């Protein structure tokens, strides 16, 4: 920066920009973690863009130069973060242990906060069937259901699920203790692609749906588990095929990339729909290409072979319900 004013102004602009970003971030997701993450990302961005500024040619106008440098810095940060998160994905042995019959005892963590995305019709039905199949007594679990709005069916199925979880547990443990079911709440969002909707109009509605999804990932419930620390981010995010599911998991991934969530949280589970036998659905393909899911499960052996995924058998409950 020996040529005086220009370089100095650029520094100031970079700092002002990143300060603004930090402020915006803190407003959107208030909390200790977001401030720290903001500070860390800010420092990184400033360093990287000042480096980029030195490399960029001086002949072009300074504002464009600064914008370019900031852009380069941001891309490098995101790419680096993305690779870091991929490196620290769940160990495949975690799944292997479950396949070998390991049943985890999650009461050793304060709160097990899981987010389930209920898409529409069949997706919802499958998800609820999978949750209900062998629901263990879990007093420290908090389930958050994300329901796509205008879908009264999903809400009805969710209520049905919660009721049957209660009944099942009461039967299983032989005691009347609804506390063992844990707690739940639900969020409503706009769905990102309606059936038969064209892809270009789907892009806009997808972008619109990110804000409520982000709220669903960061929001605390209106009531809290007394005496327990609420986790900074959900422990697990589960989705099984609706398009909104990818947006949700991409947001979750992004939160890990920019340090908005601790690395051990927001584990992504994708279960391919029972309806897919030979080819992956569009959402499944997106997960396949981006490789962001910690666990990718399919329910048909041919599909597992075609894409090299874990064959999980029928995870849904197909046995006739006793009544």
């Amino acid at each position, binding site marked *: 920066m020996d040529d005086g004013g220009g370089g100095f102004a650029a520094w100031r602009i970079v700092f002002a920009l990143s300060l603004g970003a930090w402020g915006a971030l803190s407003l959107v997701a208030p909390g200790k973690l977001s401030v720290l993450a903001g500070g860390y990302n800010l420092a990184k961005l400033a360093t990287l863009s000042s480096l980029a500024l030195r490399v960029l040619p001086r002949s072009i106008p300074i504002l464009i130069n600064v914008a370019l440098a900031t852009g380069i810095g941001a891309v490098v940060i995101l790419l680096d973060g993305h690779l870091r998160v991929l490196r620290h994905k*769940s*160990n495949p*042995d*975690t*799944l292997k*242990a*479950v*396949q070998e019959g*390991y*049943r*985890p*005892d*999650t009461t050793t*963590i304060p709160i*097990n906060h*899981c987010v389930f995305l209920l898409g*529409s*019709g*069949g*997706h*919802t*039905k*499958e998800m609820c069937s999978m*949750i209900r*199949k*062998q629901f*263990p007594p*879990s007093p420290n679990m908090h389930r958050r259901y994300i329901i796509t709005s205008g879908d009264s*069916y999903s809400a*009805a199925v969710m209520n049905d699920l919660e009721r049957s979880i209660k009944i099942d547990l009461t039967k299983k443990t032989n005691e009347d203790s609804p506390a063992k079911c844990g707690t739940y709440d639900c969020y409503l969002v706009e769905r990102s692609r309606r*059936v*038969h909707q064209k892809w270009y109009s789907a892009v806009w509605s997808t972008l619109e749906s990110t804000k409520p999804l982000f709220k669903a990932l960061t929001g605390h419930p209106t009531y809290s588990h007394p005496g327990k620390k609420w*986790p900074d981010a959900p*422990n*697990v995010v*589960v989705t099984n095929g609706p398009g909104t599911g990818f947006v949700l998991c991409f947001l979750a991934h992004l939160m890990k990339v920019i340090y908005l969530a601790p690395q*051990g*949280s927001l*584990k992504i*589970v994708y279960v391919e729909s*029972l*309806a897919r*036998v030979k*080819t992956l*659905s569009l959402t499944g393909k997106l997960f396949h290409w981006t490789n962001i899911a*910690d*666990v990718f*499960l399919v*329910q*048909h*052996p041919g599909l597992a072979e075609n894409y090299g995924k874990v064959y*999980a*058998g*029928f*995870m849904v*409950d*197909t046995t*006739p*319900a*006793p009544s």
Partner: protein
Amino acid sequence: MAKNKPTTAQSPVAEAGAAASQPSHVSPPPKTCLVTIGATASFPSLLRDSISPAFLDCLIVHGYRHLILQCGPLVESIDNCLESSSTSPSSPGTSAPVSGFSRQPNPPGYFTYTCPSEPRPATYPNQRRLTIETTSHFQYFPSVVKKCVDSGGVLVGHAGSGTILDALTGGARMIAVPNTELMGNHQEETAEEFGRRGMVVRGEIGRLVEALEYSEKTPVLKAKVEAPAAEGDLAGTRGLDLMDVIGALALSGANPIEFRRQVGIEKYYSS
């Protein structure tokens, strides 16, 4: 229900056999057929097929008295369709009296279809009428499925995973008709795969009658084996449990030390 189920599934055969042996007018209890297009996408061609005279005649021949149509947003148009065919024979000069539809006076969504010719088999001698009920959606689908199963009837629906799951958990015979207009035509695969496993009967638009005939011939659902028995299965073939997977991931992320202790450290690091 689990105990009663095999008897309800086999009852049509048993009753038919009894009726055939003694040619009196003792007919089996009337059956209910349920046609559903699911909650999400609409499927007009299935509905159009299921109110075609050929299919309705076939239903009557097999002892059905009641047809429930779940039409979703199409309920208006189907009602209009039935309405127009029920009024057309009365108005002079229009189509032949082939369509034996008539509107029932008191409950609004109800129609009656009368088979124009004499019913062919001797099993159901004095029955030519079928009540058609239309509705946009069900309040609680499993209870409707149960009603259908208890009567020994069949469930006709699109090959969506939700409907198939409802049929399986309800213990219903199902004809799954793939809706070919959906993304990547995936319902074709689904219907084929579940048909191969004997969990549903695969139907086709335009060939619903054949599927019904086949389904009536094989009333006992083979699909009561609870998990896939394909080659290369997991040990136990029961399928992974989602809650176990979630628990293991949450624990390994939030408290890795405890997770390793639970699994056993040597197992966690092996291979």
